[in-house]
């Protein structure tokens, strides 16, 4: 069995094969300030009174927080009230939280070998830890909160064999964009990616970026077998005991592709598709108005470090606003303690408390018509960051930072 099949089989209590529909118990369920209110409604419509296990539910207020307006505040209040009434300890909000997919791995709440379902499409991020984690809508999440179960169609698996070492200024983001460019926005619909080969060449932060963007190719999940780096990371952090699961030899893969990391270059995805991928050098002169560095894709420590390395001692171009958003309170504090905050502020960037904010055109950096942004987020759909005539180019944090300095899309090599 593939890694996806092996994890699902362990939960189903019998062997499974791609294509089958199964009902399985889940280990963890999450929702955010946008999806939780609807999930709570579904939970009530089901006639449920108690969540299946309060310690296995997380409610993360991250999208429109700190609340952008009265109505978002009311949604957050409803989520808080539900958490209190249900005795759910993992309610995360301003000052003690962060962006869900940065936060939950950090808190050790999502673990290898588990099945995690979330009311957010980027729940697949936890595949980097070897969890079968997938995004669903609110009704599915209400059902999972009530019953501790979900239905799944066992995905076919696309195996991605990695080799080589990442060149300078190339990151997991470029691997993600490369894959999405290769298979297209729906090339992995109802499939899982499973990474194999030289997985250790990608630092864990980069694996989280890659798994995060699996859904941009339509994938149900993006899975990495958990290696020593993952197990070390979870030591002293894991909220529960866990048992890692690995693919079986001779598993049946729907497809296999190979990627030599050493041959990747910094890439960008042009508007308005994450699959419209080209090397940065090939772009020509593209002037920009805004840069966003953050999100559940690239708001982790290695991302902030890379951006700071580029911005240190330099200045954001006068025509550009550069918004840096650490993915969690812990990372924000670390950025202050280790001097990164000073680098960003001295360069003329905005440093924000953790929030999804501009990633989904919520607040903290919404685009006007005709404005162009380089963003380390995961989606550049038309209108995603604001006005439908705005444009978003997706890139890694080093490219985003270099672009902020030069006022046009640029590789850090050009500095």
């Amino acid at each position, binding site marked *: 069995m593939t890694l996806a099949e092996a994890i699902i089989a362990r939960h189903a209590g019998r062997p499974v094969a791609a294509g089958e529909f199964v009902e399985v118990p889940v280990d963890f369920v999450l929702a955010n300030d946008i999806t939780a209110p609807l999930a709570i409604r579904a939970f009530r419509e089901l006639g449920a009174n108690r969540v299946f296990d309060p310690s296995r539910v997380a409610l993360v207020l991250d*999208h429109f927080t700190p609340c952008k307006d009265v109505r978002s505040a009311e949604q957050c209040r409803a989520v808080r009230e539900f958490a209190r009434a249900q005795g759910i300890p993992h309610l995360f909000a301003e000052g003690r939280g962060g962006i869900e997919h940065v936060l939950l791995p950090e808190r050790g709440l999502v673990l290898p070998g588990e099945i995690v379902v979330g009311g957010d499409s980027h729940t697949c991020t936890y595949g980097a830890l070897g969890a079968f984690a997938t995004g669903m809508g609110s009704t599915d999440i209400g059902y999972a909160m009530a*019953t501790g179960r979900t239905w799944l169609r066992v995905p076919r698996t696309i195996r991605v064999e990695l080799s080589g070492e990442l060149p300078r200024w190339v990151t997991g983001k470029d691997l993600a964009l490369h894959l999405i460019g290769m298979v297209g926005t729906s090339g992995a619909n109802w499939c899982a990616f499973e990474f194999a080969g030289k997985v250790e060449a990608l630092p864990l932060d980069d694996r989280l970026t890659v798994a995060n963007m699996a859904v941009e190719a339509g994938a149900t999940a993006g899975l990495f077998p958990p290696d020593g780096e993952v197990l070390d990371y979870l030591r002293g952090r894991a909220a529960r005991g866990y048992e890692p699961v690995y693919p079986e030899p001779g598993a049946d893969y729907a497809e296999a592709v190979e990627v030599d990391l050493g041959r990747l270059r910094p890439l960008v995805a042009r508007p308005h598709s994450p699959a419209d991928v080209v090397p940065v050098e090939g772009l020509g002169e593209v002037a920009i108005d805004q840069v966003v560095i953050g999100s559940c894709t690239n708001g982790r420590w290695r991302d902030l470090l890379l951006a700071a390395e580029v911005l240190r001692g330099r200045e954001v171009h006068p025509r550009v606003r550069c918004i840096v958003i650490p993915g969690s309170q812990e990372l924000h504090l670390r950025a202050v303690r280790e001097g990164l905050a000073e680098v960003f502020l001295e360069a003329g960037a905005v440093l924000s408390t953790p929030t999804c904010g501009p990633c989904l055109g919520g607040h903290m950096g919404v685009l006007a018509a005709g404005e162009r942004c380089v963003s380390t987020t995961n989606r550049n759909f038309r209108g995603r960051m604001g006005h439908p005539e705005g444009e978003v180019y997706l890139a890694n944090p080093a490219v985003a930072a270099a672009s902020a300095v030069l006022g046009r899309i640029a590789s850090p090599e050009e500095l």
Partner: protein
Amino acid sequence: MVIRGRALVVGDDVDTDAIVPARYLVTSDPAELGRHCLEGLDLGFPGRIRPGDILVAGENFGCGSSREHAVLALKGAGIGCVVARSFARIFFRNATNLGFPLVECPVLRDVAEGDLLAVDLRRGVIRDLTSGRAFAAPPLPPFILEILDAGGLIPWARRRRYGA
């Protein structure tokens, strides 16, 4: 069940941000969400929708964000059903869970804006009454049909799994 309506045609990769932009996700009221339906594609789009219209899409309809508000917006705008060459997984689940009719038809093509369509959900046949063409959709898996027949995940669960 046969749904009849006027075709409203959109392209490939219509994502859920286009169906209902995030700035409107401060409510879960279908009527209010419906007033912004497909505004992410074009600010004038909601004004073009007439209740009962059938949305005709290309590949990967509903990709992107998991927001179930996208299905609510389509319902709220009065869209009768969506037919597409393919649907993204999460959107497909959401529509199924809410009992909103979809027909996935990989051979669907050349439907013109304004054509009169008749969609037979049970048989999986899409007829373009204007051009005289018909397209057959592959049957849905039995498990999905079970949920749809119950009227969505909640009635399905209430009936079969969760108490009464």
